[in-house]
């Protein structure tokens, strides 16, 4: 059975030794993020900072709660979904894909039954600075909330649209939101509300339950509700409750909800911010202003945050893990729905959104080009620069297998393909474009475009079967475990949905 809240998820981590509570006061000013970054790099337990130095608050900070173990990043999220422990990555993907194909509509609950309404602050009681928002990197433009779900109106769905856009705190009631045009919520603001001179109602949901949090990393088709996909993933409806000051509905078990509106024709500074590539990223931008009208929260709210930049290389963090455990299966569902018979689409670990690996058959010549063309022209491809296509039998979650496929199967002359030069949009958060190429970056993509590419690392001819039978491999691995090797090193000891892996 899946967990219903961030708290239940943290309790689950605690029972398996993956949670570490700090009772001694820790500062929101770089200290909490530094400790979290060390945990991310060293594969340590998820830190919970129970006492915040220099501020009287009942709130607690949680550093990168969804980070998974470096060797098996899906393990924690699999537990949150109620799956048995020890699943291989491929089996985990199969099970998540099955759930995403069975969406479940949310259900509404009354305010008095919603934990996120245990405390309600409106009017003069609204004070953003009474919460310990972390100052995450030296050189950031301000304190940030960057691990949340934003709920905005959507005329095509009953429950609004959900996404994630980082938020820089300015004062007691104002923050700037990084709204880059091209994505659904920013488009709603830039092309709908602002031209009409209307404020756009918004709720920033902090510490939502795991399946809600994961939908922000998925590509949910326009007109479909993220709430229904979160329910499918959870295998139970997500409870929603109406906001106090607008008509939006928010996840009822969330730790904290900021209700407010994005003002038309108004901008505040946003950034610089130490971004997901691991570098300080400027310039500071003029971004839309979120004004808070009400704050509701649970007692002793847990405020999760992500140390962006620590999810590259061997380190994992919440966003790099959620990409792997949620965006990957979701993309696989999307490609199959479009008629492509892919086995798995997986963000390649260590590359921080830049590279994806797609395991697929190649039924006819030109198929991979069609597939790449479909992806680059359909998805939100601002973050992704290239794909690696491997055979369906290659495990895209296994970096060694992918590198082997590139080394053995990718012909430098024929298998490296580029989609034109400087034609594709690029999110202005990358580090290889100069400030001039990025342009003013007030909204949308970089001024200068970039190229997209893919590597065909699939076998060209009939594959030579050099592997032992699945049964033999499984037996060999069992012998190695009996001999004392760590079972966690092998991810093929389970059965993958009816067929031996």
């Amino acid at each position, binding site marked *: 059975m899946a967990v219903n809240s961030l708290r239940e998820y943290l309790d689950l981590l605690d029972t398996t030794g993956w949670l570490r509570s700090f009772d001694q006061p820790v500062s929101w000013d770089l200290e909490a993020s530094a400790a979290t970054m060390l945990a991310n790099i060293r594969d340590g337990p998820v830190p919970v900072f129970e006492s915040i130095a220099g501020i009287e608050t009942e709130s607690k900070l949680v550093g990168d709660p969804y980070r998974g173990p470096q060797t098996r990043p899906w393990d924690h999220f699999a537990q949150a979904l109620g799956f048995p422990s020890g699943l291989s990555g491929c089996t985990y993907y199969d099970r998540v894909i099955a759930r995403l194909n069975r969406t479940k509509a949310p259900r509404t609950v009354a305010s008095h039954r919603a934990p996120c309404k245990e405390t309600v602050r409106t009017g003069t009681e609204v004070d953003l600075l009474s919460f310990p928002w972390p100052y995450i990197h030296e050189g950031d*433009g301000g304190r940030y909330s960057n691990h949340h779900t934003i709920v905005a109106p959507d005329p095509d769905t009953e429950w609004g649209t959900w996404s994630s856009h980082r938020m820089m705190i300015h004062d007691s009631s104002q923050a700037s939101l990084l709204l880059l045009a091209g994505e659904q919520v920013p488009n709603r603001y830039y092309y709908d509300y602002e031209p009409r001179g209307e404020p756009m109602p918004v709720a920033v949901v902090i510490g939502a339950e795991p399946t809600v949090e994961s939908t922000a990393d998925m590509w949910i088709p326009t007109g479909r509700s993220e709430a229904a996909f979160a329910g499918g993933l959870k295998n139970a409806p997500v409870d929603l409750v109406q906001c106090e000051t607008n008509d939006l509905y928010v996840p009822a078990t969330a730790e904290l909800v900021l209700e407010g509106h994005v003002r038309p024709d108004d901008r505040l500074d946003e950034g610089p911010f130490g971004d997901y590539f691991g570098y300080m990223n*400027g310039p500071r931008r003029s971004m839309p202003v979120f004004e808070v009208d009400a704050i509701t929260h649970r007692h002793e709210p847990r405020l999760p945050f992500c140390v962006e930049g620590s999810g590259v290389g061997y380190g994992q963090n919440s966003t790099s893990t959620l990409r792997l455990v949620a965006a990957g299966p979701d993309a696989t569902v999307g490609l199959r729905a479009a008629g492509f018979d892919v086995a798995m689409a997986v963000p390649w670990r260590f590359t921080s959104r830049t590279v994806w690996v797609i395991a697929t058959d190649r039924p006819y010549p030109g198929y991979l080009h069609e597939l790449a063309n479909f992806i680059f022209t359909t998805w939100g491809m601002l973050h992704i620069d290239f794909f690696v296509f491997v055979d369906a039998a290659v495990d895209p979650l296994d970096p060694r297998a992918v590198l082997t496929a590139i080394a053995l199967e990718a012909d430098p002359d024929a298998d490296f393909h580029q989609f034109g030069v400087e034609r594709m949009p690029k999110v202005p958060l990358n580090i290889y474009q100069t400030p001039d190429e990025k342009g003013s970056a007030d909204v949308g993509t970089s001024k200068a475009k970039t190229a997209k590419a893919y590597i065909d690392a699939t076998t060209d001819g009939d594959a030579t079967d050099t592997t032992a039978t699945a049964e033999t491999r499984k037996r060999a691995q069992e012998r190695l475990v009996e001999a004392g090797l760590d079972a966690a090193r092998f991810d093929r000891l389970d059965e993958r949905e009816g067929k031996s892996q």
Partner: protein
Amino acid sequence: MSSHYITSTDHLPEEAQAETTLQITDAQTKRIFETRVRIAKDPAELTDPEPLTIVAGPHESVSETRYVELLDETDATGIDHELVAHLAAEQETASNILNTRSDDLKVLLQYLVETGEYESTADALREVAFDHLATERPALLDAYAEVRREPDDDPLRRVLGKQE
């Protein structure tokens, strides 16, 4: 309140001027706000100098230190709400007659009256001034409207409140 502030070179006025409205970040609390300040390279030029780190460059990785003196704190719109409230309170017991001397303005306003656009020069001046403020200084009008809405600033309600 901190004793150290940060701003971006983008926010500095193009021409060197001692006093300006500036967006600054409190280095201790990271609160970001606008305020009237005096800036100087030499702290001796200021009465109550605090260090001001000015960050520059595409990733704000370059910085220099100047000195700043905070004059009064305004909100993001640059409006000093306390001053608006103070002036509104003062006006409750003051004359509401405005005096100005200008032959040119008198001729122009009189023209608007003679052509039937307004009934009097006072009427014309009120309308033109309010229209101008609504267009050019909407934040100031909003701040004043907010002050006017506050019950405490209504003498009638205050008196009634004391009687209860």
